[in-house]
């Protein structure tokens, strides 16, 4: 087990190293001198010279990478052109919204996707299964922002039950502010719940073909007991690990949803930074999301292995 964890962590470290080279290169492959990319068009010659020296842009590219990576490791992701503030603090400002949005989305996904997927699997092959699986495929074919705009139209504009945009911090206005995230999280949950539904169904059907399930049935255990104790417990392992990947992916999928609902999260920060040509922020967000993505995947894999020692390292 321990050697598995070490090997897996090593592989993640190598991937991260390679990914960091790509992210570092990002600033350099954008058309134009990196100095202008980093300082914007309004920089004075003095500022340019100072930053060029400070960042070591007069050094060989390998030295530049090592210094950049060293600064990134110590939490210095550069300065935002637009905010005139450290990139890390700009990202931290959006972290509350993004984390809460992703968490609420995962709650919906678990509440909708898992039970309905179970029903579809238990009723495998019936019209109910076909209907539910078809509905899941339909949900996965809908653009998220379209769902979001419809939810705004119905629940915010027509009925006036929920706010349509923005999110004031729960630290300022109390937990009641979570109502600002209800429509966005439902929007984001739709395609992901569909995915988890299909996965729950497929994984339960897989397990139901196992020998121990047949043995349990042959022993005369009641059908719903077989489903609950033998099939579900084993099938949910796959589903729970998919939760980890989904959560990690949500951080970037939220880009569109946060834009629709004007939420002050990391996703909208990316879009606005693209429009503002605030390249250091874009680079910083990509780095943070990739690191989180890799770490979550690493923990999920190790956790999976802890729960199911049969899994082999590929």
């Amino acid at each position, binding site marked *: 087990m321990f050697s598995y964890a070490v090997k897996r962590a090593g592989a993640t470290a*190598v*991937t*991260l190293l*390679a*990914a960091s080279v*790509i992210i570092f290169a*990002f600033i350099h*492959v*954008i*058309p134009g001198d990196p100095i202008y990319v980093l300082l914007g068009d309004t920089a004075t010659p003095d500022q340019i010279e100072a930053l060029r020296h400070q960042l070591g842009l007069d050094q060989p590219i390998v030295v530049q990478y090592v210094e950049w990576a060293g600064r990134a490791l110590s939490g210095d992701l550069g300065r935002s052109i637009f905010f005139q503030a450290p990139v890390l603090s700009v990202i931290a400002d959006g972290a509350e919204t993004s984390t809460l949005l992703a968490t609420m989305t995962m709650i919906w996904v678990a509440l909708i996707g898992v039970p309905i997927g179970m029903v579809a699997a238990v009723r495998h092959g019936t019209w109910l299964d076909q209907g539910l699986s*078809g509905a899941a*495929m*339909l949900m*996965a*074919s*809908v*653009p*998220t*922002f*379209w769902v979001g*705009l*419809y939810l*705004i*139209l119905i629940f915010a*504009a*027509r009925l006036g039950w929920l706010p349509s945009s923005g999110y004031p911090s729960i630290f300022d206005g109390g937990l009641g502010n979570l109502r600002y995230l209800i429509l966005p999280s439902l929007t984001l949950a739709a395609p992901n719940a569909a995915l988890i539904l299909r*996965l729950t169904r*497929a994984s339960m059907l897989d397990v139901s073909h196992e020998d121990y399930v047949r043995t349990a049935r042959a022993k005369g255990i009641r059908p719903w007991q077989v489903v609950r104790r033998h099939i579900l417990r084993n099938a949910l392992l796959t589903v729970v690990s998919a939760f980890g990947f989904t959560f*990690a*992916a949500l*951080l*970037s*999928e939220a*880009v*569109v949803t946060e*834009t*629709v609902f004007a939420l002050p999260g990391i996703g909208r920060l*990316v*879009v606005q930074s*693209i*429009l503002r040509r605030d*390249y250091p922020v*874009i680079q910083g967000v*990509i780095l943070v*999301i*990739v690191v989180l*993505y*890799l770490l979550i995947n690493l923990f999920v894999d190790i956790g999976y292995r802890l729960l199911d020692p049969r899994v082999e390292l590929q």
Partner: protein
Amino acid sequence: MNLDGIALWMTPFKARPIALAGICVLLAVVLAAVFAPWLAPYDPYAIHPAIRLLPPHAGHWFGTDQFGRDTLSRAIYSARMALLIGSGVVFFALITGIPIGVFSALFPRLGHVLMRAVDVLMAFPSLLLALGLIVILGPSVANAIIAIGAGYMTTTTRIIYGLTLRLRAETYVEASRSMGAGTNWLVIRHILPNLVSPLLVQASFVFAFAQLGAASLDFLGLGAPPEIPSWGNMLAESRTFITRAPWLLFFPGSMIVFTAFSLNLVGDALRDRLDPRLRDVFRGEA
């Protein structure tokens, strides 16, 4: 392809009428794209300030937008952009994925390096990768295709890699190799023909998700230029008027859903007729 071949391809659709309906929707989209100038009742670019934001009625079945342009005509012309983006992304994914995947499987040492590189790219969530590439390349239709295609190139490469590994172990491939067949022969005679069916499945899923990806980029203002009719652009513009003109939201969105759903249905039906030995490569994808 002879008639028997066509009949064979139709079997999955006979068993599933809904997948056949999907084929019909896709045919309709293709026809709309090809015959747009004849099918569209009005010029999709013509601005008529006098008839702004009219709800659907006999003269304009889908209503008009904020410039008085006919929504139906714009929706029909948008089919062109949908097909262009979809086929572009599929082409990009295949043209990169097939050589990388096949040669990685045939030459393990090369494959080790290349598949690790694919892993590295997969560490970038697909939408984030697309946005990053758009920043570097600049927003345009061609760049949207590359940016979306980059995300699907990785999954497609992995699938091709997995399939080729399996095919390589098949007895007839081993037999062919032991009789002295070279790599070219193996690839052309045994690997590629067997990749056709699974890749058709993958292509329909990639085509479907490319529609959603392109719509997202258009919506963020980072895809096709706003004056070009595309369903994503139409939705992006409708946003300001959703309470006054909900039909501007309904029609283009439905077009995206119809198209993507049909492609998914077709992909699903095709997947079920795949050789079971190759089918589970699609586990967890798409």
